[in-house]
């Protein structure tokens, strides 16, 4: 795993009355234990990976409490775990990245929502929206609405988040309905503190087993139960939820001096809205606002009475609702109409319909709202002046900088084993012409960015091969699909490979076998060799492929670019029909370095011989064309100003980040680029033989007119 959570695990042990200092998503984990959960499941993905990761390191605590933790094969598997809460009073929580994970989970989610739950069922949703997001931009709200799952969007501070986890279970049980807790990226990673409670052992668990299974046909998702379940949702569960939310004051109202206007907002937007008001001189540092706020920590279902009470007597309210469609704004309008209230509802007309509501966006929206609404007794000139002063530097920067600074898209890490596969593809394309490549989700999706620009479509995790089946017949030559080992085990084996073999698809699949789900923090997968609890498992991708009938199968070490080029060429041109699979084998370099660095340091300290490999560029041989960079993009292969007064173009340069993977040299070789690259093996703690050999070589080379190498190996 990318990070060890040994230190954080101790936070999970805190007893009542202590202060927890740490990350938002870890506070949620602690809150789950405080709520007496029986089981926790999930599928990793930013920004909720740490919830899964910390539990993988927390086996002792979970065993003491009797809590079952299991990283699922995919989000559908995680969601299906909630089935435990349908018949039994077992509290459970599952987590994943939304909306992509929610998409995968939706089959199980619909079923659990329809059957209803006895034990509290909580779904922790990492809302990957806006800055730093790596997925399609949608909101999870629609999922809650379509399945009648309640949606919590707490104010992003640790005490509120923790409280909403605990209240979420109660709400779920009070209304027999699963509940989603939505946390945005920054809320997951916010560092703050809260006062803890004791962990609670669940009523039933492996330590206290259930004696008899419960059979109840009304809980089965088959007609006529399903009809009854739908009615039950509307007639019983929904009103129960609204009542619980109201009685327990899950939503909050803050009064303000300018009570002829107000702001209705999602809980997650609270801090941003308060900051905007502070900047305009309409709030103090502690959140005392001059404009009244109605903060919805529960965004679905809404509580019509609360909305109308807040809006009554106001000329205008602003709805701050991130994302689209504007479900909340529409609902507020409908509620006011039904209550025959004339309050003007402002929302997506001063705030953007799409995109993240950052500080700047909300500041602009709130300013426009206040300027338009003209609250009684407010000096608008002051507000406008403050806004002007805040936003002026950005305009001035554009003038001073001239051209926009270059973007820094994410890319393959130094020494990444996936880079050479795309270098090879680029070389093969030179021979065979441009190819259609069905890309997939994972680190390898970076192939779609410069310098490779390889990959024509991305359809979803593990769907690379499946997404090629419609388009492949339309090409005169084969198409290539890419799939990571994470995607392969997530669903690619069944959705892609089995289907392609079954349908006798004639195409080429490259599976990136780097050993982990690297993009989400290098969690273990079936082919890692060990599971999340570090127990040995024996599941190989190749065996799975052979098992489903793949005949043309080659496993190739990714750094051998020449071999990879030949394999791709053969896969593309062989007469053999059916699916041709190349397993591109190379361990995630992040994980590899994490493993070997301490070992090397230890060996060095012990005086053992260690060879360090680095690559370099001969500056006077390099002509500054940068073809090598266009075929690599390695962060450590960069440019530097030429020290040759005659050459003005910068020359290629390998910086100290180099881990010696050799791709730059191999690329220069395979693509016949230039002779500038060299590989240097530095022998640390040389043996007497190393030293003697070195001395002899130096002596002879010196005699031949070469360098007195300056290295006095003694």
């Amino acid at each position: 795993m990318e990070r060890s959570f040994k230190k954080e695990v101790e936070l999970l042990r805190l007893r009542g009355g202590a202060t927890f200092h740490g990350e938002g998503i870890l506070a949620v984990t602690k809150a789950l234990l405080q709520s007496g959960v029986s089981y926790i499941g999930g599928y990793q993905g930013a920004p909720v990976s740490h919830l899964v990761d910390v539990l993988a390191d927390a086996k002792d605590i979970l065993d003491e409490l009797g809590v079952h933790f299991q990283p699922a094969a995919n989000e559908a598997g995680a969601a299906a775990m909630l089935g435990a809460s349908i018949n039994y009073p077992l509290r459970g929580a599952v987590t994943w990245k939304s909306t992509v994970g929610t998409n995968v989970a939706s089959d199980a989610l619909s079923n659990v929502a329809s059957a209803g739950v006895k034990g509290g069922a909580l779904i922790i949703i990492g809302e990957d929206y806006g800055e730093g997001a790596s997925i399609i931009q949608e909101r999870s709200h629609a999922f809650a609405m379509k399945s009648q799952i309640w949606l919590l969007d707490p104010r992003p501070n640790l005490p509120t988040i923790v409280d909403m986890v605990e209240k979420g279970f109660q709400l779920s049980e009070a209304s027999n309905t699963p509940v989603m807790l939505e946390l945005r990226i920054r809320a997951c990673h916010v560092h703050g503190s809260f006062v803890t409670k004791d962990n609670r052992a669940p009523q039933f668990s492996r330590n206290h087993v259930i004696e008899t299974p419960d059979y109840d046909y009304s809980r089965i998702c088959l007609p006529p139960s399903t009809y009854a379940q739908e009615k039950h949702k509307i007639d019983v569960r929904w009103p129960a939820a609204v009542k619980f939310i109201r009685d327990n004051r899950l939503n909050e109202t803050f009064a303000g001096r300018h009570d002829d206007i107000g702001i209705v907002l999602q809980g997650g937007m609270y801090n941003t809205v308060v900051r905007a008001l502070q900047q305009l001189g309409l709030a103090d540092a502690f959140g005392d606002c001059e404009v009244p706020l109605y903060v919805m920590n529960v965004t679905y279902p809404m509580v019509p009475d609360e909305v109308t009470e807040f809006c009554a007597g106001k000329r205008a309210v602003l709805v701050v609702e991130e994302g689209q469609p504007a479900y909340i704004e529409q609902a507020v309008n409908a509620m006011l109409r039904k209550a025959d209230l004339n309050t003007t509802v402002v929302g997506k007309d001063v705030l953007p319909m799409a995109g993240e509501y950052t500080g700047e966006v909300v500041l602009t929206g709130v300013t426009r709202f206040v300027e338009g609404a003209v609250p009684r007794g407010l000096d608008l000139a002051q507000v406008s002046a403050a806004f002007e002063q805040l936003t002026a530097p950005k305009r001035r920067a554009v003038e001073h900088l001239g051209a926009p600074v270059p973007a820094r898209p994410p890319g393959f890490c130094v020494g990444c084993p996936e880079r050479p596969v795309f270098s090879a593809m680029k070389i093969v394309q030179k021979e065979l012409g441009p190819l259609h490549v069905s890309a997939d989700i994972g680190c390898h999706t970076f192939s779609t960015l410069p310098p490779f620009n390889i990959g024509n479509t991305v359809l979803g995790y593990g769907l690379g091969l499946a997404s090629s089946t419609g388009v492949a017949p339309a090409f005169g030559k084969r198409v290539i699909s890419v799939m990571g080992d994470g995607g392969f085990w997530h669903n690619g084996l069944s959705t892609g490979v089995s289907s392609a073999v079954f349908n006798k698809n004639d195409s080429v699949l490259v599976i990136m076998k780097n050993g982990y789900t690297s993009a989400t923090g290098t969690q273990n997968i079936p082919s890692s060799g060990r599971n999340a609890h570090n127990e040995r498992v024996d599941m190989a991708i190749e065996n799975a492929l052979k098992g489903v009938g793949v005949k043309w199968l080659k496993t190739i070490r990714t750094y051998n670019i020449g071999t990879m080029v030949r394999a791709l060429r053969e896969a593309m041109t062989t007469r053999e029909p059916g699916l041709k699979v190349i397993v591109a084998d190379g361990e995630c370099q992040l994980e590899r370095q994490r493993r070997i660095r301490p070992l090397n340091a230890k060996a060095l300290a012990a005086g053992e011989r260690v060879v360090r490999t680095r690559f370099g560029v001969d500056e006077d041989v390099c002509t500054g064309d940068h073809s090598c960079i266009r075929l690599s993009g390695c962060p450590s292969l960069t440019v530097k100003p030429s020290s040759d007064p005659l050459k003005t173009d910068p020359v290629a340069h390998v910086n100290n980040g180099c881990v010696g993977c050799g791709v730059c040299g191999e690329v220069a070789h395979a693509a016949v680029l230039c002779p500038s690259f060299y590989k240097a093996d530095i022998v640390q703690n040389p043996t007497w033989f190393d030293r003697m050999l070195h001395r002899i070589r130096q002596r002879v080379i010196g005699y031949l007119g070469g360098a007195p190498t300056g290295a006095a190996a003694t």
Partner: protein
Amino acid sequence: MSDQPARPVTVLIAALGGEGGGVLADWLVDAAAAEDFPVQSTSIPGVAQRTGATTYYIEIFPARADTLGGRRPVFALTPSPGNIDVMVASELIEAGRAMQNGYVSPERTTLVASTHRIYAIAEKIAMGDGRYDAHAVTRAADQLAKWAVLYDFARLAQQTGSVINAVLFGAIASTGALPFGRAACEAAIRRSGKGVEASLRGFAAGFACARGELAPAAGRAAAPRAADPVEIVRQSFPPQTHAIIEEGVRRVTDYQDDDYARLYLERLTPILTVDRHGAQSEYKLTNATARHLALWMSYEDVIRVAALKTRTSRIARVRDEIGAKTHEPVVVVEFLKPGVEELCAVLPAALGSRVLAFARKRGLTDRFNVGLHVKTTTVTGFLLLRTMARLKPWRRRTARFAEEQALIGRWLDAVERCAARDPAAAIEIAECARLIKGYGETHRRGLRNFNLIFESLADRRADAAAIKQAREAALADPEGDALDKTLAALAGSLSPSHGLPAVDPCIFEGSGEQASSPSGDVARAARG
């Protein structure tokens, strides 16, 4: 509570993955918490950290929590324009990005930024020079920040054996923009427990630096070069050209011999003669031609590469670059892949040109490359390359030599003729030599682009702007699409309707590929 601070102190850290931005944020949080100041930090890890740019945002309320009467400040999770007290950038362009996003304001922001560059992919993949103008960032910083502390903190970190985050921490602390002092910061580093000594060293260096206790980063000192005056240069060329021409003489002498250097100067003399306005323009034409001529005359063939890779100073430079300690043996492996072109380059002219022509005709140019991993630190490997380098005198008889000299002659001729008519255009033609560089396919592509521009513009009396535009287009993409489009567009403007003759009567003789079509298809036709 009117005596309470009105707002939190906000710190935004812009960093790249692996620079320890998260650790810096943790130090700040820990230092604030130790003072009992309410504090919050947020970040956006995940995919953004895979080599991309990322930010860490910290808000510190500068009053002890126990003085707040149970009230808690509301902290923002996202930074807002115009609302940043301390902007930290671990790299220069990230400072530019911060300004671009409005995070640096003259009323509030102390900007602490490292001036070193880590080039973005778009800057690196350019075929020529794609680097962003760093001066624009430093100029803007001086204008936009309340106080800008700009220094090569990466180098300072390296010098002190520390990491840039610790150095930046020291620099921030010394600006006084944080609500706690040096001791609190150093205590936070100590509590973190990892690499404490190195971090404290870096912190101290950064602290001293921002206070101006260190000399400002010196500009890159010109590499000391052996004073090797060439009398002809001194006597026959104006002083404004000596720097480049002397360097050129050294280069071609090293490349071949004294005779070759004399040829270099003979070739430059007519250019100087036509550079009539030279004195007013710092001899721009002569200098540009001299620079490119020296590079062209020292084109890289296997003999040259072998010589460069076996020269005495090389292994020392390699050892320095890879950071090998003096007692550590180093094995250097060269990645060579000579093929038909490289072989022909050392064959006698008659034979070489015939073999090459055959290979090109059959598309076999790239078919017979032999991958070699030559260890230049072993006796046999060194001997192999050294022997190759010793073929230098033979070079004059090779096919490649003849080919290059012909091309050079044609180029110089065009520069000279054009200078008489349009000095600005002559400079642009001279600069076109920049396109020919690299090895193998890269070299062929450069040559093809060069010829295209030559035939469709330079030979047809195009003006300076057009030639420049085409040259830049040639450097825009490796496939040559931009050049094709540009030439097609320019060819239209060169049509006879604009009163320009379609064909320059003074194009050099002997080219079988004269572009005579006035239509917009010139580019493609000449290429096809």
